[in-house]
């Protein structure tokens, strides 16, 4: 802050003082006072006012400068009042108390919103839990119905089984969306929820494959599971990874080509300290213009306009979860040919031993 701004507001006062000096000099001159006495009088007037102005500017400057500097140097500017002392001059006191009041009212507001959002999140968690029960029962019921048809094995059984399978596949789709919202609702608080351990990458992709077997079969897509020759452990959360890779597979299924659709799920080792898990499909691909934005929240892009199932959330959640876990995620694609999502995980021997 420049010293100039203090004088700018005081232009009137300063002019008045100068005017006073001129007038006093003029009056004293008229009474034929000695020139030395006039100079001393003017000097005394200026010293007196100058002292007053100096003291005022000094205390204001101290408070305002601290306020300004601190507010810009801390990342949470609303906490600035905690970093400075209450000023001693009354105008400053007034300002300080006012800011304190505004802060308190905002804190109250934020607290209410946080409470609401946390209550909402709790409710969502509970709700997801509740919805899982009937879904799970439907899943069992349909499986039982299919088994019943299999044991009777008459002419119409095949037709009914086909219907039940269709219903089962719809339940699987619903389950996928349910998982998505569960992870989304946990995104903001999820730091408390993950559990890192040493996970074998080959076992991981095999588990993903088994969990997604029905989804892949329902869509008549071939899934090639390509583990790495020498299995390796990485430090990650296996549940999260199963979900993340599952999301990538469900994307590949959504945007598959009409015939001979294939998804490769493979593990690579680009260097000694890195492991890559890749999901590559031969689907419709992503336009180059959209490629940089697919990880953004709610971005659906050109493909989104043609497919009603695009929510724009899947890859956003994938990216956020990967960042939490410290993994890198990257997407490459050629429109009309293929899409490949790569998750890169660092291998850290020290961490590995620490976890063990």
């Amino acid at each position, binding site marked *: 802050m420049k010293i100039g701004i203090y004088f700018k507001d005081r232009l009137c006062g300063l002019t008045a003082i100068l005017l006073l000096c001129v007038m006093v000099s003029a009056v004293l001159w008229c009474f034929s006072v000695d020139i030395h006495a006039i100079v001393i009088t003017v000097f005394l007037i200026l010293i007196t006012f100058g002292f007053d102005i100096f003291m005022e500017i000094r205390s204001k400057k101290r408070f305002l400068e601290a306020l300004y500097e601190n507010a810009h140097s801390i990342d949470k500017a609303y906490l600035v009042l905690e970093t400075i002392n209450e000023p001693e001059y009354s105008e400053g006191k007034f300002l300080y108390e006012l800011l304190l009041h505004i802060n308190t009212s905002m804190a109250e507001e934020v607290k209410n919103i946080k409470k609401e959002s946390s209550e909402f999140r709790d409710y969502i*968690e509970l709700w997801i*839990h509740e919805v*899982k*029960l*009937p*879904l*799970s*029962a439907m*899943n*069992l*019921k349909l*499986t*039982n119905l*299919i*088994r*019943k*048809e*299999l*044991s009777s*094995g008459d002419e119409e*059984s*095949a*037709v009914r*089984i*086909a219907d039940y*399978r269709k219903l089962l596949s719809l*339940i699987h789709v619903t*389950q996928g969306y349910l998982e998505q919202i*569960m992870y989304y609702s946990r995104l903001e608080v999820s730091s408390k*929820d*993950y*559990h890192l351990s040493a996970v074998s990458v080959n076992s991981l992709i*095999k588990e993903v*494959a*088994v*969990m997604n*077997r*029905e989804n892949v*079969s329902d869509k*008549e897509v*071939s*899934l*090639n*599971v390509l583990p790495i020759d020498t299995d390796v452990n990485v430090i990650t*959360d296996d*549940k999260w990874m199963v979900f993340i890779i599952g999301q990538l597979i469900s994307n590949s299924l959504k945007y598959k080509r009409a015939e001979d659709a294939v998804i490769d799920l493979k593990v690579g080792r680009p260097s000694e300290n890195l492991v890559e898990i890749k999901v590559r499909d031969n689907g419709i691909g992503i336009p180059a213009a959209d490629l940089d934005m697919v990880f953004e929240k709610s971005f659906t892009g050109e493909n989104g306009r043609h497919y009603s199932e695009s929510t724009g959330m899947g890859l956003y959640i994938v990216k956020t979860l990967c960042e939490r876990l410290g993994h890198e995620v990257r997407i490459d694609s050629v429109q009309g040919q293929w899409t490949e999502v790569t998750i890169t995980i660092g291998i850290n021997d020290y961490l590995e031993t620490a976890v063990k």
Partner: protein
Amino acid sequence: MKKILIIEDDRDNREELSVLLSCSGYEAQYTDKFDRVVEDVAKNSPDLVLLDIDLPGVDGKEILRDIRKKSEVPVIMVTGSQREADEIFSFGYGADDYVTKPYNPTLLLLRINNIFKRTSVSEDSIEYMGLKINPVRNTMTDPSGKEIVLTKNENLILCHLIGKRGTIVSRDELMDHLWNNSEFINDNTLTVNVSRLRAKLESAGVTDAIETRKGLGYVLR
């Protein structure tokens, strides 16, 4: 017959699960009172317990801990929530497996089967129509003593069909079984595997062993 005790508070899930288990050759029992579960386990002495974690008024993990004080019965925890802590505590208290709802019923059956295999002595060879099948060595021996080598897939399919001899086994079930054993084959490959297995059985003197039921699955004679 192996006895399985279901401890689950949701009625629909409990009943459907009990139907599933009954149809799969187990004796299923369930309870709707959750304050005396440990006593129930002691009284009925089941071979396996399916235990829900979120029960009204009690915590499934506590029940597990109490069960473990008295008994070594295999316990599979079933839960609707995906809290990490639940899983860690469950294994800490001595659970044998942990399944989250909604689960794939076929995979649950395979897991139950795995536990029983783990707890009982596994058979060296299986008899079928005069053939001796050796699942560990991936071979079968015909009555004259000639050994025929099976691929891992053929072996898995044959053993699963023998286990369900006389009933229709759906392609889905076979696929689940194969995938669960890290054989990630697609629909066409399954068809090819079954016809190759059929040919091998024929060469061993067992003709028309596997019958195809269109739209349903396969039956082993």
